[in-house]
Structures are given as C-alpha cells and as structure tokens.
C-alpha cells in the first residue's frame, strides 16, 4: 500500500464511504488530510483512526462519545469525572450504574438489578 492515500483510496481501504469520512473529519473524529487543495493526502494513521472509530462503534459507542475518546475537538470534555454506583448483587457479582441517571431510569435499572440478585440468590440455594 502507498504511504499516501487519496480520499477514495482511504474510503475503500477502510470500508467507510467518503462522505462519512468527511463527516467524521468535520466532527473531529478523524484528522483532515495532510495538506489542503490539489494532492490532499491521507496516511495509514488516518486508516488506523478509522478502524478505531469502527471498533468503538461496534462496541456500542456513539460518535459524540468516540469524539471524546479519540481526543478530537471535544477533547476538552475528556477529563470530566463521572460518578458511578456499585451494587453488590451477590458475593461474586457487582453491577455498576451511572449515578446521574434520571429517577425513572434508576427505578427501572434497580428493578432489573433486584431481579438479577433474586435470581442469583435462588440459583445458589438450588
């Protein structure tokens, strides 16, 4: 593979349409080409970044979140702390939930955790 790629070559190599790559660049998920104008070029680093974005998407991350993770334009938020609750549902099982969930969702999640705890307790007894 050449050291420098056109956008079309990058799109084909990554399996990501060119329009999507431009969209990612605009959102700061991927850096722009090495130089603007005629002969704009992309490198294997761009390809690696695209592969990483795809991987993170497959893990269920949203583009906004990926932007933070890969340190694009939203990098200033990256260090923002988040609070989590730890629920010990059995001696050997812990469930983590975000502390800033809305009350209605907290109720839903708690119901599911209670159900899990009851199930694990019952399974152990049987």
């Amino acid at each position, binding site marked *: 593979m050449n050291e420098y790629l056109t956008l079309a070559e990058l799109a084909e190599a990554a399996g990501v349409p060119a329009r999507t790559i431009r969209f990612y660049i605009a959102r700061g998920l991927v850096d722009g080409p090495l130089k603007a104008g005629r002969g704009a070029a992309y490198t294997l680093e761009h390809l690696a970044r695209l592969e990483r974005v795809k991987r993170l998407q497959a893990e269920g991350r949203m583009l906004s979140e990926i932007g933070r993770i890969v340190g694009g334009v939203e990098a200033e938020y990256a260090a923002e702390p988040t609070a989590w609750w730890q629920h010990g549902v059995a001696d050997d099982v812990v469930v983590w939930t975000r502390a800033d969930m809305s009350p*209605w969702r907290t109720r839903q999640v708690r119901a599911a955790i209670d*159900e899990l705890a009851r199930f694990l307790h019952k399974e152990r007894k049987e």
Partner: protein
Amino acid sequence: MSTTAASFAPVAAPTGEPIRLAMQRLWLSGRVLPAGARLTVQHVFRSGEDKPLEVVYSFPLPRDAALRAFRITGEGFEAHSELRQTEEAVKAYEQGIADGSLSALARQYGDGVVNLTVGNIRPNETVTVHLEVLAGVELRDDGFRFRFPFTLAPAYHRQMKAAVVAEGEGEMELPPSQFGDMILPRFREDAASLHEVGFDLSVLHQLAVEEIGSPSHSIRVRQDGMAPARVALAPEKDVPNRDLVLDVRYKETAAQMFAGATGEGKRAFAAIVPSTLFGVNTEAPRRTVIVLDRSGSMQGAPIAQARKAIEACLAALSESDWFGLVAFDDQVESMSAGLLSGTRENRQKARAFLGRVDARGGTELARGFLEAARMLHGGGDVLILTDGQVAGTEQILAQARAASIRLSCLGIGSASQDRFLALLARETAGVSRFVTTRERVDLAAVDLFASIGRPVASGLKASSNVQPEPPSAVFAGTPILLFGETEEHPGAVELTWDGGRLGLPLPSGDSETGQTVRLLQGSRLITDWESRYPSEEALAPLEKRQQSRVGARLLALSQAYGLASREMSLVAVVKRAGDRADELPETRVVPVGMPQDVRFGSYFGGGTTGSFTMMAPMAAPAAAPAAGRGFRLGAALQGMITRVRLPREVEAEVSADPLVELASELEPDGGMPGRSASVRAARSVAAVLAFVAEGHTLTAGAFRSHVARLVGFLKSAGGVSDREKASIERAIEAASSGSAPRGDWLALARAPGAEWAKIEKALKA
C-alpha cells in the same frame, strides 16, 4: 435563480448573535390531485463559511412517494439531475467533490428516508435545489387528506443509541449494518431557530368541494367553483416541527376518473371508487383484537384519548362478537389469553385493563401484532393505535405479511410515519388513518373501528390493465384507488367482486394528467417493492443485489418510470470556472425540530449535555418469552429504554367527548343501560337522537355502528306503551334520514329515569 428570503435572519436566543444556517428555507409547491400529488420542494442552502461547504439534509418520504428529478440553481448556473444506478451516482458525486465542483446527490435509504447532499457550496454562495417528488394521499369516500413531512420524527429501534449533545439538542444513531451510511439529523427541542418552511399548493378536484382545511397549519384558501383551489401558508413562514396536513372534503360522494395520453398510443389512468358503490356493512359477528401502543412517545393526550376510544369501540361490539386487547411497548401485555365475547363483564374487564395502561418503554410493534395474531388464530382483524415511530420498518412489514392477519392502523402524531402505517395496512389488506394530536384520536378510532371486520365487498378483482392489484376487500368509508394503462380509447375499468360488478368508463383527459397519473402509479409501485426490500439485501454489494428479485424489480421500475429508489439515485455535478480540486468541504448536517407533540425527554430523557445513553442493548435479540421459572433479566433489560414514564397525573387531561362517553355506555344487546325496560328504551331513543343530531346515522359518521346497534335494540324493545312505541319509531326514522329535532338529547340519554314526557315534547317541537 436563487430566491433566498433576505428577511429571514434567525438569532441565537441566549446571545442574540445571528445563527448561520446551512439550510435556510424549505418551500413546498405543486399540484395536489385526489389520486396523489406532484410536488416541487425548494431547498435553499447558503454557506456562511470561509471554505467550501457540504450540507446533508435528511427527510422522510411521504406515503407512496418517489423522487423524480431535481434542478440545482445559483448565481449564473442551472443544472438538472440524472437518474443513475446508486453506485454510479455516488461515484459521480464523489468525483465531482474531488474535482472541486458543486455536486448534489439525492439518495434513498430504508424506511423511506432520503439524504439530500449538496457539496462544494462556495463561501457566501446561495444554492437552491428544486426537488420533484410524487406522493400519495389518504383517501376517504368524502374527500382526501394530503400529508407532507416538514421534519423527521425520531424512531425507536432495538439497537438505536441516543445522546443529548447540546442544550435541547439530541442525536440518534442507527446501526450501520442495517441502515448503511444514512446520516440522521440532530433533533432540536426548539425549532424556532431552524430553517423556515412554507407552502403554496394548487388543489385539483373533480367533485364540488365543501371545505379545505388544515389541522396542522394556518392556511389561506382561494377557491372559485371547480377551478383548482390555491392553498398557502397564512403566515409568512413557519418552523419545521410538524407535517403539513391538508383536508379536502367534497359535497358529494362519487367515482373520480383521471386519464390522459402518455405517448405511443397509450393512456394512463387513475380511478377512485368510493366504498358506497360496492355496498354496505354486513352485521356478521366479528373477531377483533385492538392493539394499543403504550410506548413512551405516546405519553400525554394520545394515550389518554386512545384509552377512551377503545372503550367506545368495545361498546360497538355485541355478545356475538369476540374481542381481545393487547398493550405493547418493548413488552407485551394481553388482557386475556384468548378472545372474549363482548359481554358486559368482559367489557368491564377491558376497562380495568386499560386503566392500568401507562405510556412507557420502546415500540416493539411487531411483538404487539404477533400477540394479536396468536389470539386470532388467523381469523379476524387487528386494529393498531400507534404513533408508528419505529425504524427498520421493512422487517416489521415482513413479519406482518408472514402473520397472515389483516391489520388496520390508526396513526397518531404530528410528524409523519404515515408512509409506514399506510404500507402496514395495505400489505395486510387493512385500512389506515393518520390523525394529528390536534384532532380527536377517539373519534377517528371509533370511525375506523366501525368499518373494519366487516368488508362491504370481498374477492375484488380488476381488469388486467390495472396495476398494482386492487385490495381483496373494500371497507366502508375508504375508497379504492386503481392505476393502470390502456391502449383503448376511451377505454374502461372493469371491477368484479363476490356478488357484484362495475364498469367505469375513462375520460379523454389531457397528456399532463396522463403523465402525472403514470408517475403516481410508478411511485406507488416503487413504494410497494421498497417495502419488500430488507436492509440486508438492499445493502449488499451490487453483484449480490443483481440476483435479488426485489432489487431487480426496483431497478426495472426506476428505469421504466424515471423515478428514484434505493437502486437508482439522482445526481448532478456543476462544473464551473474556479473549481479547486481536492479541497475538502466542511460537512454540516441540517438539524430538524422535534415533532411538536413528542417530548424531547421521551427520546433524550434524563441526560445533560455530553451524556450518553445506550437506548437498548447492542445486538440484543428479541427477548424470548418467559417460560416457567426461567430467568427474565433479558426482558427486564429490554425495558430499560430511555423514554420517560410520566405519572398518570402529569398526563394531559383529555376532555371527554360526550358522544364517546355515550357510546361507551352501550350494553352488549345494543341498548342503553337502565333499571327497567322502559328506562332502557327511553334512554336509547334519546341516545339515537343525540348521535343523529351530530351527523351520525345508520350509514354515516364515526358512530354509525353504535347507531345501528341502538336501532337494533329499539326494534325489539318490549315493555313500552303505544305512545312510547311512536317515539321509538321516530328515532328509528331519524337514524335513517339523518334529521333529528332539537332537544337536549344527551341529557335525556343520561337521565336515570324514563323521561318519555320530555322525549315526546321534544319530538313534537
């Protein structure tokens, strides 16, 4: 040349700074016929950037719609689109972008969502795309409803993800494996700072028009006899947070025929045949399951109205009818394991069940109607009350077809899922209506319920020149629409059904009508085939798609009618002096307004800026039904959908329609309740007259089946005097003639005793 509204300059509310909008204006014009609409949608894009801009605008297609062509204009240029196979169109667009040329691509995705992408708009340049769209309308015997989406509703999908990305702004993503590279817009809670929208339409009609109105927008109507009516937005501009809904009501009910030459000695035609030409409802017992969407987006007035509507629908059942009730979100709950007869006890059971139904969770529509199918064992009808806000509709449609049940749909909402619900009903031989939240959901439900289950004609067949095939059954209130082509002049359409036949001669017409009708036929055929194209097939590489029966059919239809589909897209590249190759344009996605009746929090709830919400487990399979003592965490987690569940007291108070209340009181034998036969008869007479006074008779109006049941009860009423019998006769006569004397009939129908004296007095007045 471009026509940017110079006066339009939105500012950011917190700062007062002007907002730079990539798209400034969306304006709808064109001709609306009873058989469909031929529209031009003008999109005005403007770059406020100091570098080239690429703008992506996402919109949903209306019902039975297809894109035909676009024209792109700007300072010193005008270009027309070409219809090319999608791969070629994308390639041409990308080459245009790489060459630095202004390029535009209109590409259709699943669920009828279109991405209109315009790239390389130069700094401070204004570019206008005039997009021609063919679209269908919702037909009724006495008129039609035209609906055009000015925004895109968020939609539930098991694998969707959503996040709040800014104050009052949400973002939603769908899995690329099923939706390809489709780009969704951001959803803005407040649409006031977005692009302006408006419309100016001609409405053509063959029958004299009683009224043209809109439950969605303030309109100006200019109407002069049988000339096309001009309907325009009354204010200068509006915001993109709801569909345009136009209602046209005729003074009479009759067949309408449109025809005209299309070249090579052929003529295209469209025929609208009202249900009244086929017959009237039979009184055969029916088997019906009502399926209520209780998902979070139904919260507030829609679900409260739907509950009342279902009670009134059930009152139209007799003891010989069988019914079931299912509520679904991402879980399904049935009132009973099987169908129940329409006894008083069972209706009370249904009322108690409805009282427990709150809005919550996601919209697993297929699970709702599959439960109904199980209860019906293949025989009967399903009525679904839903906002239809779901993605991946092709998969749901496949499940509906496989279930072999007849689905009728009542859509509720201000932003269109009309295309999907119309398909869901049509593909299963049912009927659909879509109402806005500004209208009474309960009345529409009662009206639809009166017509389903008892077709006025079955086994319908049309002459071979009709395509697509007509529906197998016809239902009261809903006409059938036929498209076709003939080489005969003047030619005719022949219809036969079980016990009847009808011949309708075609008019000569003009070639403009002929061309329009042919395009409407094409857009209808493409929509039908699009609905049978699952995403895994539609997103496959070209070589595989060429082996797909649906893909090949769509390609052939696109080529034959010159209309876009997922197989063919529209592209234009404008080469101009000064084009600079390989300059990367800045990509912007045009945000849209949240539909006005959908709470921002119902999709993006609980989050603050920068928060992320996984809406449903990734790649989660449908939760298996709980069996025995099996662990149900899967089902519990499926319920963790980011949609707010409001306490009942927060739901909007729905003012009860007195007629809905009255209808819900009917006993299984069709009469009003009461402590004696005389009281029951007196109250039933008053109830008939209350319905007739509001325009509901034995054959017309939403409460026609309630009137029929009351009349049936009165015909066999005993324990009354001769004088009282005379009043009963008057009421039965009024139910046929549609004329009721003045009187406080509602109060008399609700009176605890037999108010015969007051009834007789009012009847004599």
